[in-house]
Structures are given as C-alpha cells and as structure tokens.
C-alpha cells in the first residue's frame, strides 16, 4: 500500500535530517514536545478535537442513539419500516399512510434499521480498532527499533530482515486471509496490523537510535555502570518517543481505514456495527442504484474525518520533529 512507500520514502528522504532532540529530564522533554505540537499546529489541535468528540460519542453511544442499530424497526402494522428517507428529505405526509412517524435523521436501511443509530455505534469499532492497533504498532515498532539500533550485530540483522519480509507481504490480502481464518472479530484487524505495520516505525526508530547512541549522555550512562536495558529504556527511549507518537498517529488513521476496507469486503463480524460494515450493507443492498446518498455519504464522511484527524496530528509531530519539512 501507499503508506509503505511513503514511510520508506520519508525515511530515506529524511536520512540527512536527524530529528531534533531536547535536553532535560525524560518526562519533561516529552511533555514539552507534545505541548509544542498542539500549540504550534492548529490543525493538530483540530485533529485532537475531532478525536475527543468521537470518543465522547462512542462512550455515550447507547444514550445518544435513538434506536437499536441492529434491530429492524416496525410500523404500527408490524411491517418493517424499509428504506425510509431522512425526515428532512421525505415528502410531507408520505409516512402517514405507512403507519409510522418519520423521526429518522438519516433514514432507514432496506430492512428497516436506523442509519443514524448505526452511525453513532460505528464510532465505537472505529476508535477501538484505531487506538489499539496504533498502540500495538507503535509499541512493537519502538521496541524493535530500539533493540536493533542499540545492539546492532546479529540482533539487528534478524530484526531488519524480518522487517523486509513484513514489507513484502501484501497488507490488505494478509488481513483478509487472517480475518477469514479466525472467527470474525474486529481484533483480527488489530492483530494483523500489529504483525505487519511495525516495520515502518521499527526502521525509522532504529536509524534514530543509531545516531543517539553515539551521543555523550549515553556514553556517560554506560561509564557510570547502567545496564543495557536501562540505557535503552531510560536514557534513549524518551528521546525517540515523539517519533513513536508520530507513527502512532498515522497508524490510527491507517487502522481506521483498514478496518473500514476489511468490513466493506465482508470480513467483519456482522454483529458489530462499523462504518465499513454500513457501507458494505449499502453496497450489497443496491443503495447505489437507488441513489440513496443519505445512506452512503455519512459513514464515509465519518471515516474521512477520523482518518484526517490522525493525519493532522501526525503532521503536527512531523513539523516539530523535522523542522525542515515545515510549511514555509
């Protein structure tokens, strides 16, 4: 996929540009970098705001959603309320004959499920997959990058060859196969992403560690008798953590997109509503030929918004860490 190309390209392009590092205590430099990202870059702050809103929606989903997202709704005659238009689009009086009051903000599906309620509940799987996959990718990539860069030698060789293998495995096909072989669940996507996507983070962090480990404070720590693990995780790790955040933010975006694609292809759990699943449902029940934009547009917009939020935050980190790329 393209993000791999971008990561590899970014990595080689930035070979000369070493990320800026701060002095001072580990926690403090981390805090200052994070603060700078969101103070300097309004778009990154906007991204954070989008995530905050969707998080609130996801937590309060059962309270906000007017109807059950999975149960088809029935009218007074006990028939399913199929293909109801959003009330602001429907012809007035049309619903009276059908035996229900149209209060549907986004209409209903072809079997009478409330689209708006599905949209609200869909934020849960998007954020769950997005954040857990990103956390897994960032943690695995960071640890592998740290170990490979610090120890070098055969450890480095093995880990980087493993990264080569991960770069050679087609991402979406791999996830499809994994999802098909195990019981359908959103965790398949998280596991498959964790197994493959650490490669980008791992490579970049490794090349940064190669630079940092030559610096005076690392030698000082070694002379004063700190163990390897202590040097890696207490002295080196804090300096490269902003990079992990950078890749983590992009990973949130890719995870949400990937989960949507996999659900759209029909490899998700049909009991869990997600935006990708909604679009699959619309696609398979011929919403396209009925021009049901009210069904097709909203889930895609939600995916796009959350993915852009991840991009914005990632770019914010990029600009603080690699000032040469900054918009001039």
């Amino acid at each position: 996929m393209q993000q791999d190309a971008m990561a590899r390209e970014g990595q080689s392009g930035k070979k000369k540009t070493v990320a800026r590092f701060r002095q001072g205590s580990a926690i403090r430099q981390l805090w200052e970098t994070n603060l700078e990202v969101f103070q300097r870059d309004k778009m990154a702050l906007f991204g954070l705001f989008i995530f905050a809103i969707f998080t609130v929606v996801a937590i309060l989903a059962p309270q906000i959603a007017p109807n059950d997202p999975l149960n088809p709704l029935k009218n007074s005659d006990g028939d399913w309320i199929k293909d109801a238009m959003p009330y602001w689009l429907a012809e007035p009086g049309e619903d009276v004959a059908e035996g229900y009051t149209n209060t549907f903000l986004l209409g209903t599906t072809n079997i009478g499920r409330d689209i708006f309620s599905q949209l609200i509940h869909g934020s849960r799987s998007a954020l769950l997959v997005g954040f857990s996959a990103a956390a897994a990718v960032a943690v695995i990539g960071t640890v592998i990058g740290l170990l490979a860069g610090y120890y070098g030698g055969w450890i480095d060789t093995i880990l980087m060859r493993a990264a080569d293998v991960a770069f050679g495995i087609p991402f979406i096909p791999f996830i499809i196969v994994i999802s098909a072989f195990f019981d359908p669940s959103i965790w398949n996507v998280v596991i498959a992403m964790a197994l493959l996507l650490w490669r980008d983070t791992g490579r970049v962090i490794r090349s940064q560690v190669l630079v940092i480990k030559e610096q005076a404070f690392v030698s000082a720590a070694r002379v004063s008798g700190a163990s390897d693990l202590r040097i890696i995780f207490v002295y080196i790790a804090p300096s490269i953590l902003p990079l992990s955040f950078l890749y983590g933010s992009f990973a949130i975006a890719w995870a949400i997109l990937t989960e949507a694609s996999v659900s759209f292809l029909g490899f998700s759990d049909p009991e869990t509503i997600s935006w990708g699943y909604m679009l699959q449902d619309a696609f398979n029940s011929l919403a396209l030929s009925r021009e049901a934009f009210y069904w097709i547009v909203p889930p895609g917009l939600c995916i796009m918004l959350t993915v852009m939020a991840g991009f914005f935050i990632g770019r914010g980190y990029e600009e603080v860490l690699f000032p040469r790329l900054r918009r001039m």
Partner: protein
Amino acid sequence: MNRGVVYYILGRFLQSVMVLWIIVTLLFLLFRLAPSNPLASYIDTTFTKQQEAALLARFGLDKPLGEQYIIYLFNLLKLDLGETFSYSGKSVMDILRADLPNTIYLTLSSLLLAYLVGVLGGIAMAALRGSLLERVGTTFTLMTRAAPQFWVGMLLLTFFAFQLKLLPSSGIGPAIVRYRWETEWDKLMSPVFWRHMILPTFTLALYLHGLPLLLMRSNMLEVLDQDYVTMSRLAGYSEWRVMIQTAARNAMLPVLTALTLGIGYSIGGNVVIEHVFSWPGLGRTLVRAVQQADYPLAQGAFFFIALIIVFMNFIADILYSLLDPRVGASAQAQVS
C-alpha cells in the same frame, strides 16, 4: 557500473529471493491454519470415506506436512500453483493469468495519471507556498488520502453510473463484447473496455495522486533552498526555468522511487477498488477465493501479489542506489 554496484545488486537480489522464500513458507503455514478441512467446501456430505480419501490424495493432502512443503516449493518453482476447488478443477495459474493483465492495466493507467497530476501539482504547490490556494490544494489532497477508496468509488458510481447513466457500473465489458476479444490486444483496442476503465482508474488515481504531490512539494521546498537554485536565480534565469529545469528535475528522483514502490503496493492494495467495480483482477479473485474457501486459488493469488511487491521493492532499491550514489554506499553499509 563499477564492481561495488554489481555486488550490491547481486546482494539485494539474493536478499529478495530469501525474503520471498520466507513469505512463501509463511504462506504455506498460514493456509495450514485454515479452519477445518481445506477441502470442506469441496467435499459433499454424501461422499464416502473412500471418496474423501481419494480426493485428499489427489490434492496431496494425505502426505506428512514436511513432504507437502517440499512438493509445494518445487511446484512453485515450476510456477505450478495447483488446481482450484471452486472453478471445477481449472488450474490456478490459468485463472491468475487471465486476471493479471486486467490488474496491470488498471494499476498502470491510474499510477500514470496520479503521478502526472501529482508531480505537476507538487511543483505548483511549492511555487504557491504560503498562499491560500496552496492551503486549499494541500487540504484537498489530504482529504483524498483520508477518504476510503471504496467510498469514493461508490459515490462516483452512484453519480456517474446510476444518476447520470454516463458510464458503465461494473466489469470490463458486456459478455457479447468480451466474447469477441481473442487476444489482450483486441481488448486494449476496444473502446468498450476503455469506457469501463474510466471510473476505476479515476477513483484509484484520486487516491494515489496524494503521495507524489506531497512528496514533490516537500522535495521542491528542500531543493529550492539549495545554493545552485539561488545561483541560477542570480544568473537571471526566469522563475519558470528555475522551477522546472533546475529544481523540479532534482526533486523528481525520490518520486521515481516512490512510483516503483507504488506499482507493487497498488497491485496489492487494488483489492478494494476491484471489488467495488467488479473488476476481474487479482484482488477480486483473491477476495472471492477466500470467501469460497478455495484455498489453492487464494494462496496462488496471494503469492502472485507478494511476488510483484518483492520484485518492485528490489527494483526500487536498485533504482535508488543508481540514481543517488550516496544512498548506495550507506545502503551497502546496512546490508553488510
């Protein structure tokens, strides 16, 4: 070409072969993880035990795992991917051979379009830096990268195929027309085929143009800071000439590498687009094979896509080291 470069290429090639071998092994193990009997979809419930055993023997599934693995490797070397379960015993290779050209046409035409627009757009964005137009343009590009491809495809389908009825909604052409295509050349010469290609190509290109555009833009900004650009400005060349002849030519190199990588990764990532437009390519075949538990076909399609990706990664590495000798040296240091 000096000896160092030859050794580097040779080393990279051997490494790619190793990577492919590991992927192939993982693929073998992965498909042994498959739930239930790999022939589950094939075996009728009315089969007797003997019939079942005969079938297992026909696919070599009665042998021990190690032996199966060896047979599998040798078959791969001969490019023999076995027989499909679901297409009444057609060979996997036949099906993939029919799919591959379609995937390649779609990928190459959309990459071409995307990189043309991306490179020119990137130059324009760099020239316009700081302006409102640049901000709007970059935001639009970010949006196209954030929007799920299949969703964009669905919107375009609804609008152009169903609402305006301007373009066909799926496939590569009606059966009556396809019947007359005896060779790939006939297909490529057919206007019907190209009409079917417009929407998927445009959808894919819309997504793909973001990478070259953003890459080109940041490369241009970096190059424009260099002394030789300042020099050519001082020498009195027009702004247009400075931008295109001096800066853009140098900013192009990383974009070319990205294009090479892009070919491999788009072929792997086309799955979703091919599904939306029912485009008969590798990706759609893979999805169907997995859905129908046709494991030899799924395995074969997966192998094909991985082969293309590994090969393109190799080409990109070589290209990068040839175009930029500095990278060659440091890359060699990484290899050893």
